Structure formats: C-alpha cells, structure tokens
C-alpha cells in the first residue's frame, strides 16, 4: 500500500519552475529519501504534500488529495522542518505539553518522548538548548502523537556526528514500528544508510529513483576492483576474467590487506547524472 502518491506535480514561484512533472510513490512503512542539492525543490515538495502550498498535477497522502486536505490529517502526520519553531521562553516539557494537549496525549508519554530523543533535563528552558538539542525537541514533538507518516526536512543538517547517529537510530526504530518516513537530505551516506528507496532530485526533475544499492550497481560501468595492499598502496584492477591471474598473484604473495568492489556511491552517481555535487 502506498502512503504517498505523486503524479506529474509541477510548481512555480514567480514564473520560475521549481518542480517539473514529478512522479513518485512511497510505500507504507518505508524510509524514503529525496536527495538533492540546496534549491532542488525538496522542501517545496514536503510543503505540497502537507497542504502548505498549491500545485498542479496530482498528489495524494494516505489516499487524500493534498490540495484539499482536511485539518484532521495533521493528527496523522508529523513534521520536522528547518523552520519548525519552538517556544523559546518555555521549558522543553511545557513545549511538549502544549502539543500533547492538542492530541490528548498523557504526561508520561511526553516524558518518554523526551527521553527517547535523549532530552532528560525536561525543565530546561528551550532558549538554552543547543541546535542539536532543539532539533531533538522538534523531533520529539513530531513523534508525540505517533504519526503514520513523518516528514523530515534535512533532520541532521548541521548536527555533530554523534547526534546525527542518535537520530538515525531513532528513525530506524520508528521504521521498525511501521512509521512511513519521508526524508530530504543532501547527505548521501545518511540516505544510503537509512532509506529503502531514494529519488535524486535536480532542478525540479527526478533524475534517478530506486533502491540505493541498485542505483550504485546500475552506474558501476567501470566495474573496478580495489585492492588495499599491506604496504599501504591501493591498486585498482578492472573486474574481468583476463585479470584473474593478476588478482590471484596479490593473494599468492600475501600482499592483500583488503579487497573491495569499487562501484560508485550516490554522490558519484548524482555527479555523473547532473554534473553537480550533492552537498552544495
């Protein structure tokens, strides 16, 4: 079953077309990653899917058209956007309790949600939180009502690796619980680690769509093998029968520290398709 279904979506701002005939589907219970550089249209697509922007084409979320979403949909989705605000003068607990009351969520669920994202000092004023802690608070708030679909717009952007890893762990837990996660990022390692399917977005077009490993294999045209030798040198050899003796000789001479296939990563694929880098 599909949680999100988009067909021929287009969107323009002041005559500049940001999304051009975009089509994709997101299955229930999967993590879907939309990858693209800044300005590719990732946030615009989330805003369309959550009823914040008008559009042309067809977009459905849980079978409901996004151009006429009933307000009750907001009790079934959670959002972490780069512009999701928090009440800075209130404590973490008070920030959470406000939204808990909107959704009839009990106090112990609030405390557990804060613990789940690693915020233990619930009486701390939100203005004293670091960027990473604020991001965790926004994530905890988005999870408070157990949404069926979670939209995350660059959730780990600007965070330290430890905090980012904590958030990755939490997202995988949510996926295991059956939550559908729609994630935008320009971090291809994050996308490869988390996502069941990804779409590469460039200048409003989807240039590639599929399972991350499949996409990397699809563009593995050079089909190289990389041998890391014990003396620290790296040798790359084309993976074909004629080179089998040469590869075997490295093993015979006990020179091999490690051997890898060297298919391209998502960043390389994106560059080869668009001529642009992802993390800009």
């Amino acid at each position, binding site marked *: 079953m599909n949680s999100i279904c988009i067909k021929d979506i287009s969107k323009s701002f002041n005559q500049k077309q940001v999304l051009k005939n975009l089509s994709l589907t997101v299955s229930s219970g999967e993590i879907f990653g939309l990858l693209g550089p800044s300005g590719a249209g990732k946030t615009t697509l989330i805003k369309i899917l959550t009823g914040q922007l008008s559009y042309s084409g067809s977009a459905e979320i849980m079978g409901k058209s996004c151009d006429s979403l009933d307000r009750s949909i907001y009790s079934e989705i959670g959002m972490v956007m780069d512009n999701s*605000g*928090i*009440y800075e003068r209130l404590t973490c607990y008070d920030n959470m309790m406000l939204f808990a009351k909107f959704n009839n969520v009990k106090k112990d669920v609030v405390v557990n949600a804060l613990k789940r994202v690693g915020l233990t000092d619930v009486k701390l004023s939100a203005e004293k939180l670091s960027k990473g802690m604020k991001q965790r608070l926004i994530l905890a708030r988005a999870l408070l009502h157990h949404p069926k679909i979670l939209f995350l717009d660059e959730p780990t952007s600007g965070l330290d690796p430890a905090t980012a890893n904590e958030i990755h762990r939490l997202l995988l837990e949510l996926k295991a619980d059956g939550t559908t996660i729609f994630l935008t990022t320009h971090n291809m390692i994050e996308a490869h680690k988390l996502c069941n399917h990804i779409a590469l977005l460039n200048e409003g077009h989807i240039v590639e769509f599929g399972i991350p490993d499949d996409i990397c294999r699809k563009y593995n045209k050079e089909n190289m093998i990389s041998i890391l030798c014990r003396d620290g040198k790296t040798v790359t050899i084309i993976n074909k029968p004629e080179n089998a003796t040469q590869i075997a000789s490295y093993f015979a001479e006990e020179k091999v520290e490690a051997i890898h296939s060297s298919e391209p990563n998502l960043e390389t694929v994106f560059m080869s398709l668009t001529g642009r880098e992802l993390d800009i």
Partner: protein
Amino acid sequence: MHVQNITALFYKQIKDSLKNTPVLVLFIVFPIIALVMTQAMKGQAGMDSLFVSMFSTMHCVFTPIMATSSIIAEEKEKNTLRVLFLSNVTLKEYLLSIGGFVLLANLITGSIFLLFTEYSVKQSLIFMASLAIGSLISLVLGACLGLYSKNAAAASGMAISIGMIFAFMPMLANFNSGIEAISKFTFSGQISYFLAGKDVTVFGLIVLVINFVLLFAIATVLYSKSIKED
C-alpha cells in the same frame, strides 16, 4: 472547535508572557501613568476624571493592539504559528486563547483605574464593560496587524502608529470638530465616550459592532493567507 486547544494555548500564553517583560510592562504602563498624574494634580477639580478617561481609553485601545500584534508577529517570526496551524488549531481557537489572555490581563490591570474614581457600582460596571468591549475590538485589530506583518519589528512599527492614531484620536476630538466627525465613527471614539461616563447610545453600539465585524473579517482573510504560503 476544541476547548482543550483553547485552554492549552491560554495557559501557554500565561507562562510565556510571564517571562516576556515588554508585554507585561504594556499592561501596567497606562494605569501607572494615571496614578502618577492623579497624585501629582491632586486637589484640582475634574483632573481625576480627565486622567482616568484619557488613560483608560489609551489602555483599552493601545495596549491590546500592541500586545496582540507583538504576540502574533513573534509567533509568525519564530514559525510557531505555522506549527500551530499544522497541529489542527483553528483561527477561532487561536484568537480566543490569545485574545482571552490579552482581554483578561487588560481588564485586571484596567480595574486599577477604578481606584482613582468615585464611581458608583453601576458606573463601575459600565466602565468595565466598556473596557472589555474596547479591548476586544482592539485586540482583533492587533491580530490583523500581527498576521499581516512578517516579523515582530514590522508589527511593532505598525502597531505603535495605528495604536496611537486610535488611542489619541478621541482626546484630540475634544479640541477639533473635524477630528470629532471622524472619531465618532471609530470604536475608540465611542469607547472613550462610554469610559468618560456618557450615556450608551444605539449609534455608539452600531459603530462598535460594524468596527468589530470589519476587523474580524480582515483577520480571517489574513489568517487564511498565512496558512498557504503562496
């Protein structure tokens, strides 16, 4: 409309405003000025009622405009208003809770004016009712300014200008017939008559209703625009 949404936002606003000194000061500035002025001019005939009438009109008009616009504009600037909209909070719920807080705070602090008067119980009740109606219309005007402005600084600039026009117009109307001709069609002009102890007229009530309906319609349009980004 969900009552739990209104009460949750109302309590949030109390907690937030108690830590927001500029908003707190707004609610007490005119009663304190009135207290200082009445004490300074004590013994001069008619001065008590003049100061109470003048500053209670300002309190009833200027304070709710400033407070509501600054609360809403700050929510817009920090994107908490959008988060509320996307959490199934409606305009009515939001305005009732924020407005309820501003109205209550304005009435509590506005009741200080009664300490400087020798109003009878009936006059005091009319004074408080006028204060409530004036504050209600002013806070809807403040909501319009807050929803229209992109940030708190822009809202503050507009609210001060418009707040001063509506707050000072009734006072200036006492000295200029041209201004009076305009002032009597504004809610602040009519409220100043009521706060000064003049008789409540049908014309005055019609002006108040028309002002309220117009401002509420504008607030509704501005709210709808702030949900959709384009």
